[in-house]
């Protein structure tokens, strides 16, 4: 019978089809993945806005993970040659000639007289279809991707609007621009933190507070009545830690560093060169001053214990990398805001006196 089989041409064509089919399947699955990802993003954004606060990174990460889980199986799965043959037959009207030829080449069909016919027909078909092999890939409509951007945009909008940090920062900006009290818009946690900081500062000003005991009561600059009451009722000699450790005071572990740094920051504010600087710059300068003076101050025992003996030179530490802008945390913003309030109050009182 003399069957001449040219496996290369048929199989080569099928492999070319497979590459395109894989890409098409992948794009098709990615379209689903984008929808799934945007759906997860939207759902988490709604939960974030209505129920509980979820970190932004988690929300985005969950959406990306869901999309990846949908797209990954298709990315890893390559279409089989039979699938490619069926697709090519369907696309080019081959009436299963490639599918049957593939089975014949694999030996899964018993050899009969018709095998030679189907092989020769498949080779002729491949030769005719090869110039059109690119048409095997049908590009999916971009509409689905574009439409998927809508829920994504809505979700991101929800996330941005419901972000507490953003609300605090916007409140701080409006307070700075107007010079008026804007703490009503801040979160309760920030208010509580500010109150605790205010109490810490009041320890450093014990004498003045004691002498002018009715000063805070007579001013209208106090942010809230509750805060004033606590400030007045605070014992003059009470240590700062007692106020900080009060349950619900809004402070956390690690805030002691900022609390203990407040005299240095206060000292930094005393310098005339700070006129006209922003809150952030002032805060950063204050902290830098605190760290430089840490070896000479004795308000922290640990720092005193680590004082370098005379004659031993420590290698110069590399200066911190300068950056044009460092975003302040909410606590830092509240801290600086309280301190500015206090300073303005002191200046006002001294002018009045």
């Amino acid at each position, binding site marked *: 019978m003399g069957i001449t089989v040219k496996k290369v041409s048929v199989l080569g064509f099928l492999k070319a089809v497979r590459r395109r089919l894989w890409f098409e399947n992948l794009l098709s699955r990615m379209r689903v993945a984008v929808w799934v990802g945007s759906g997860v993003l939207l759902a988490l954004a709604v939960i974030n806005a209505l129920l509980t606060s979820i970190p932004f990174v988690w929300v985005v990460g969950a959406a990306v993970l869901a999309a990846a889980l949908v797209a990954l199986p298709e990315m890893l799965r390559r279409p089989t040659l039979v699938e490619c043959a069926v697709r090519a037959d369907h696309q080019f009207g081959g009436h*299963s000639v490639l*599918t049957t030829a593939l089975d014949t080449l694999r030996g899964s069909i018993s050899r009969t007289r018709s095998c030679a016919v189907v092989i020769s027909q498949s080779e002729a078909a491949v030769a005719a279809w090869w110039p059109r092999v690119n048409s095997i890939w049908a590009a999916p409509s971009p509409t689905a991707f574009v439409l998927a951007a809508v829920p994504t945009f809505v979700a991101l909008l929800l996330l941005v609007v419901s972000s507490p940090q953003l609300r605090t920062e916007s409140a701080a900006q409006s307070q700075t621009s107007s010079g008026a009290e804007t703490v009503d818009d801040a979160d309760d946690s920030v208010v509580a933190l500010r109150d605790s900081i205010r109490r810490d500062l009041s320890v450093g000003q014990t004498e003045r507070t004691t002498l002018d005991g009715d000063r805070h009561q007579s001013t209208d600059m106090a942010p809230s009545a509750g805060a004033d009451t606590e400030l007045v009722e605070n014992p003059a000699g009470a240590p700062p830690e007692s106020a900080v450790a009060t349950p619900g005071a809004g402070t956390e572990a690690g805030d002691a560093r900022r609390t203990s740094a407040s005299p240095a920051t206060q000292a930094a504010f005393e310098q005339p060169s700070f006129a006209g600087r922003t809150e952030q710059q002032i805060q950063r300068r204050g902290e830098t001053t605190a760290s430089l003076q840490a070896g000479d101050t004795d308000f922290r025992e640990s720092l005193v214990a680590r004082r370098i003996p005379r004659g031993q030179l420590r290698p110069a530490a590399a200066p911190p990398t300068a950056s044009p802008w460092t975003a302040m945390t909410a606590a830092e913003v509240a801290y600086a805001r309280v301190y500015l309030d206090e300073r303005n109050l002191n200046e006002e009182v001294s002018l009045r006196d």
Partner: protein
Amino acid sequence: MTDFTKTVETVGRDIGAVHDALSRVIVGQDDLLRYLLIAIFAGGHVLLEGLPGLGKTHLAKALAAALGVRLGRVQCTPDLLPADITGSDVLSADAKSVEFRPGPVFANLVLVDEINRATPRTQAALLEAMQEFQVTYGGTAYELPTPFWIVATQNPIELEGTFPLPEAQLDRFLFKIDIGYPSADSLEELLDTSLDSEPADELEALLTTQRVQEIVNATREVLVSEAVRKGAIRLILGTQPDSEFAAVSAKEHVRYGASPRALQALIRAARVRALFSGRVQVDFDDLRAVATPVLSHRMLLKTVSELDGITIDSVIRTLLGEWQDGLGQTR
């Protein structure tokens, strides 16, 4: 050009000639003729269902004439006995011995007219002939001629005094073909050709029994790929409401789905259709084309669906749509 390529070409030419001859006799029934030829060359039996006067008997006679095979005819009535079909022992002329006289079933193409008017006992006499191509009488088995087909007709109305065919016997028919009314143009042509004459009687034999058998054998060399086989299996399983691959329409309307014999019939018929199209491999389109006549008498609708006016053809159409969608997903 290989030998088989020539075979395919000659088969296509012969079948085309038979089709053209029959279409001159049976006017305006191209689908019917195509299905009938597919069933004949697939070696299967055909059940024709249609109202009186649509040319069912005429068609069978014309087919036998065109194929050049011997025609046997049985007109079924309630008092027809099995021996009237199979034959019986009769006393010989010299009255010294008893010999078996073959009945009308001993022909290549047997026309069983109005089969549902015969009693179940007589209908059962055809079962052995249809399945095993033999007749047993008096303990002796008599082989039927090759090729052998039964073309039965039945009337869907006037059911009084009839005996509907049991499912076991229905399953033995490869195709059940519904004959509809011809169009206006076809009726006009009908008047021109058969008003004053009987064209079927004037039809000359275009093939011989041997040639018919060669064509039947050639259809068995048509290749069926693994994907097409799986597609056929999915189609059959789709008709079974309890199957994991059951189609939605089958779950909703079908009480009993198609049998494994239906799968064999589907593939055999699809092979013939492929060969008629000049191909040596079966395609999904072949399966779809022959699915309705293969499945329509092998599926039972739920009573509720029947009362709702759901027809088996509409269910098959829906089922084929679902099957096609399933194939599209795999492509």
